[in-house]
């Protein structure tokens, strides 16, 4: 086994997901199949090879630090499921 049920449970917590009993079982099996498949990469010698994160070496795209128009507070809040006139609302944290 490449991945255990406990590991899937832990990863689900990190990803902020609940998994039902049956989901957990199915995901463990499927993740195991997928991780076993990708193991084939181990056959390749990649020592000293630079990883590619973007097909182009993108450098920072800077602009002048000038104030530009952006969404109004009202527009930015409009899609939130719960908010006040100026803030997003969530359950009490502290």
């Amino acid at each position, binding site marked *: 086994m490449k991945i255990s049920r406990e590991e899937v449970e832990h990863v689900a917590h990190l*990803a*902020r*997901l609940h998994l039902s009993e049956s989901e957990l079982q199915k995901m463990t099996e499927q993740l195991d199949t997928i*991780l076993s498949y990708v193991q084939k990469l181990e056959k390749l010698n990649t020592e000293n090879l630079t990883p*590619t994160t973007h097909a182009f070496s993108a450098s920072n795209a800077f602009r002048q630090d000038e104030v530009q128009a952006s969404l109004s507070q009202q527009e930015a809040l409009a*899609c939130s499921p719960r908010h006040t006139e100026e803030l997003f609302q969530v359950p009490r944290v502290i």
Partner: protein
Amino acid sequence: MDLCELTVAEAMEKMQAREITSVDLTQSCLDRIERVEAKIQAFITLDRKGALEQARKADTRRRSGQAGLLGGIPVALKDLLCTKGIRTTCGSRILENFIPPYDATVVERLKAEGAVVLGKVAMDEFAMGSTSESCAYTIPQNPWKNGYVAGGSSGGSAAAVAAGECLVSLGSDTGGSIRQPASLCGLVGLKPTYGLVSRYGLVAFASSLDQVGPLCRDVRDCALMMNVIGGHDHRDSTSVKREIPDYSLSLVDNVRGLRVGIPREYFVEGLDPEVEGVVRKGIELLRQAGAEIVDVSLPHTEYCVAVYYIIAPAEASSNLARYDGVHYGIRDLNADSLLDLYKNTRSAGFGAEVKRRILIGTYALSSGYYDAYYKKASQVRTMILQDFTKAYEVCDVLISPVSPTPAWKMGENVDDPLAVYLSDILTISANLAGIPSMSVPGGFSRDGLPIGIQLQGPHFREDTLLRVAHTLEKGLGKAGCAKVC
């Protein structure tokens, strides 16, 4: 022939000659939708009233001599392109009530050129899939055959264009999501070079792989669409600053002396003989037209699926962390702690495939596994990129199949994710390497299902792809619209 079956260029000519108006054209699409949509199921959101209003405006604009490059052309947009005031779901329950306060750059450009937005079309949830069957709202069907998939993830785009519900559509391609449905539905589809088309307002799946591109009825329309959507955008920091050519100048029927490479690893076991036959015919056509055919090798092709299914989920797990129920989208309003709010919202909002990829990605990036998975995959990605660089020393364009098989029956492989992942083997390396790639109709299977031919070129050589595609289209013909019955 109904107006809705015209190509964009044909419709533009007719409107320019005052033979038809945008209202005629838009109404024709709406009539077609009325007649076939119960079967095709391409639209998540249809804006009939808004479309006719836009059409009237486009007609007025034309009368005042400011038609624009797409003046009055009805388009459908994949539902992951943000549209101001029109719901954008990304095929997911988690965004079922999301109404973007802004337009994606590509949408802005289409509108600026006078396009008429009919609505938003189906896709696999968060573009994760190859059949569009993971869409939470509607599952598009292949217009060429009842009960067959339209492909994915831009399946709604492909089905709508092939069924005559719109003239052209924009999709996105992270691992083949434009080219594969285009191939399965008899369309021309182009995934541009990474950075050529702005991703601003495109809901992110895997940011280093995603590109927006068109699904069209012919190569001329494809060039036209690229003229509209290509070019630098300061709102996308990966957008490339460079001069964009007029792509319609590439539509010349001349491939004499062009070196066409056949990547031998793409003609492998599991390739449907009918698909291979169509591609071989295309190669023969190019040879007779004066192209030089060369045998090339992309030795790391067999590792592409493994690399992709680490990198794409890793990026997705990070991108999808934003769906927390706080700022937009659905929320579990009964949760009494923040942690429960996150977990309940995400667990109810995401479907199985999305959860699966978030879990793989989170695992691959987690402490202790990062080097073994993400770093390793990124290093092999370098090898894949080097394969292409080497191949393009001896050829100008690569030709191959798009999908190993024609469209398959709906409901197949739903419980075997790896089997579906493996069907992407011929398309995903273009995304890993950031190169442009397109699908052109090559013919049909005995069952009447379209089969596409894939072209891949060096970075920013969309012009070469369009030139070869143009020659193929002249010799092999267009698929046209499907007769939906």
